[in-house]
């Protein structure tokens, strides 16, 4: 089974306004997909954390919001891409290691717990990509 996209929307993240817009777009898609209030809140909050990370730590990037399906399951996937400084020690950040990057680490590890699939790829000096997926449960 593989994941196919039904709808796709790319949104820039260059300002605080953009963070709010991305959040609203994710919430709208979650509700459209039929997520209950809890699942919708979880996904929206995770998206908010990760979008803020782009804006605060990378000074800009993009968020791609997709309605996806995997066989009979429907879900929402959001990909966060930035060309910021990158994360040298991902494991340590996720564990809340660095104090300066604490807020980023909290956002990353917190988001991970709120979604079903979480993938992070980062290269120092190049940037970071985080992909989250939440599936609708019945």
């Amino acid at each position: 089974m593989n994941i196919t996209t039904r709808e796709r929307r790319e949104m820039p993240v260059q300002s605080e306004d953009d963070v709010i817009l991305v959040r609203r777009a994710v919430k709208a898609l979650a509700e459209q997909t039929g997520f209950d209030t809890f699942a919708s809140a979880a996904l929206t909050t995770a998206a908010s954390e990760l979008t803020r990370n782009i804006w605060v730590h990378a000074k800009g990037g993009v968020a791609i919001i997709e309605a996806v399906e995997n066989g009979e399951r429907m879900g929402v996937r959001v990909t966060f891409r930035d060309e910021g400084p990158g994360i040298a020690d991902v494991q340590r950040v996720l564990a809340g290691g660095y104090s300066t990057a604490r807020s980023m680490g909290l956002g990353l590890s917190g988001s991970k717990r709120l979604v079903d699939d979480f993938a992070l790829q980062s290269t120092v000096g190049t940037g970071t990509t985080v992909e989250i997926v939440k599936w609708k449960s019945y």
Partner: protein
Amino acid sequence: MDHRRYMSLLKLDEAELRARMSACELGPEDLERLQRLRPFAEKHTAEVVNAFYELLLSHPQMRKFFPDEATVRRVKRTQSDYFLGLFEGRVDLAYVEDRLRVGAMHERIGLAPKWYLAAYRKYLDLLHTLLYAEYPPAEARAFFGSIKKIVFFDMAIAIDTYIAANLETIQRHQVALRELSTPVIRVHDRVLLLPLVGAIDSVRAHQIMDTVLVRVVEEKAKCIILDIAGVAVVDTKVADNLVKTTASVRLLGAQTILTGISAQVARTIVQLGVDISIMHTRSRLQEGIELALEMVGKTIAPKNGASEGARP
């Protein structure tokens, strides 16, 4: 189920429609051919529909769907419309909706897919014979090719209708099951009780927490008693969920009282290393209820004589 609901369950939009047509290789040429065949179809409608029902009614299991002559007549009329619909030369969302309506009706009366498919086979068989009798082979083959495409297109929708209906039933059962497995009871004003019984996997644990929170707000509860005496296994995951539930109930301004804690469960919870000072626990449900009532300023007092009258 309403046919519109099928449309949304099957995600039948323009894109989906195009995908299905492409899968059957059903294109404008085919539609044009089918339209040209319309007079032919009209000429043979009665014949096809009658042969069709002869087949169905020859099977005793089918007879219950056609209890009397009036029903058979009505159904034959519907079937004729359906048959002619294949030759309209248009396949759009309205066409699909029409087909869904019929599929939904069949599903409702309990007509199994095997009969549906047997019927389609009969159609094709009849049409094949008639076409080759009336047209030169090359043309007959082209016509039959297009008919096959649209029939298979229709069959896919018919089958999906059955699948969608089953999915819908499963969903309804799951919702009912969820409600049954999380019976939050109002024991007293602003005091809730949730007796947990059976196995708690991570999905159920998640739902329990969500349900508890919603009910606490709905009932403006000051406390909720979670009795876990009936829970089969309390492993670290379940214990962790209980701790999370307690923490989130607290954020709503209410307290959680955990009761029915065995020695084993006590060990599991303590070994989790969480701060249990914020948790109220009692080994027996009765004690939990007494504590809960205290929290809302009530006491259970014996009905004695004047000396020990009820206290507020």
